[in-house]
């Protein structure tokens, strides 16, 4: 009996070890994308290697030390989100050398972003990149508008209301998403 358990355990261990990390973490190859003109400088868009480098630099900078700028500039934000979608897609390429467990974290971050923005979870990378970049261009038009000045007293209150209304909206979206996930899980378990 003990030998049987030992054999089954050993077999399972061997079988588990036969999968590559990419298979285990379900990392797919990048989806084909048509880059919108202007998403990145022409010399960076000539190859995935240059594109990844450029997108990586931009995302690191604007999601890192300069992230405060994004909160006041929706046009820049949507541009960076488009680059982030591009980067997450391209880094799935084996040649990018990203460890699968790191890739999973990136994909999780991307999915979370899609969720809060309102992009469908299963949207193609190409559609996501193009929609986000078009929205960025659209926001440039909006940003070129000047607003009428008002007193600091009112502006501060307007900002607080806007900020917390936005936070509550995002919380509601997250709760909805959790509820949907639970529902899907329950349906899956019943099947």
């Amino acid at each position, binding site marked *: 009996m003990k030998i049987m358990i030992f054999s089954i355990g050993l077999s399972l261990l061997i079988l588990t070890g036969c999968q590559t990390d990419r298979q285990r973490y379900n990392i797919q190859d990048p989806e084909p994308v048509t880059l919108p003109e202007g998403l990145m400088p022409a010399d960076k868009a000539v190859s995935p290697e240059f594109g990844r480098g450029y997108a990586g630099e931009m995302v690191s900078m604007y999601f890192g030390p300069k992230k405060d700028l994004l909160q006041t500039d929706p046009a820049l934000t949507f541009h960076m989100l488009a680059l982030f979608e591009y980067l997450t897609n391209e880094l799935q390429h084996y040649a990018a050398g990203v460890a699968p467990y790191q890739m999973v974290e990136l994909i999780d971050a991307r999915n979370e972003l899609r969720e*809060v923005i309102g992009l469908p979870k299963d949207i193609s990378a190409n559609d996501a990149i193009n929609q986000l970049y078009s929205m960025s261009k659209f926001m440039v038009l909006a940003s070129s508008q000047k607003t009428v000045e008002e007193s600091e007293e009112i502006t501060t209150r307007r900002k607080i209301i806007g900020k917390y209304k*936005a936070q509550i909206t995002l919380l509601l979206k997250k709760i909805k998403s959790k509820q949907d996930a639970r529902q899907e899980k329950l349906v899956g378990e019943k099947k």
Partner: protein
Amino acid sequence: MTSRLSAIIFATLLVCQSAYAADSEELLPADTIETMTTELQDELKTLPPATNELSRQIDSVLGSVTPTLQFASDALKKQEFSTVVDSLGLAKGTLSVALGKLPDVSVVADKDLASSLEGKGLEKFDVENVRALMDNMAITEKAALPEMAGLLDRVNQSGMDLAELNHSLERIGSSAENVTRNISFDFSNLANFSQSLQSIINNPGNIDAISREIGIAVASLGGNLKQAASAVAYGIAAGVDVNLEAAAQGAGYGSFAAAVDAYNAANGTSYSVDQAKSALGAN
């Protein structure tokens, strides 16, 4: 000896299984709303003093939102999600009402905007992309809102004291019923603006080594990116509405009435301005 070895193998398999369970569900942290409420309270303390009646009224509304959020926070700790959604919805609607009471910050038209819409800045496919994204934003927004019918009754039954909220709403000439109407304002706004975008395009007058290193560096930011994503998302949620409004005006809709006309033209409807405002919950 054999049984010890079996146990080790079994334990190893368990560890492997849990390590690879990448899709495990992460619940919303119980202190999420509490943290937000504390931040709001701190920010309220740093507000410049209210020197006029409007500011005092707004402060009263903001003050009454805090207990609503605390109620939502308690419900979250008890995992009572329907109560959380109802009370958060109420808080959101209240903030919408307050925002509606602030003076309209009309945008000053930019003379370059029209020409930038005429092909230079925005192509037809861009408008279609923007519209697709906005449609999804509206759908996501709507799906996350509480059920309007019976909302106030449910909130009352769940034990929330609405007296302070009602009192502050009365001060700005509003009511809890107005709040429930305003809860749906944002998604209606997004959806309607998305529809009217079509008329913009229908009107000719409107419109390796380095990368690998960087890639690995970015990938190692995974957890931080999630935090950054949340921060960025707040900026988007707060900024998109304002900018869309500005874009609407800059794109040729000098006023809400003009946007309603365009919407009617594009969709074969005949809404009056008042009807449209009512439909959007702005009255």
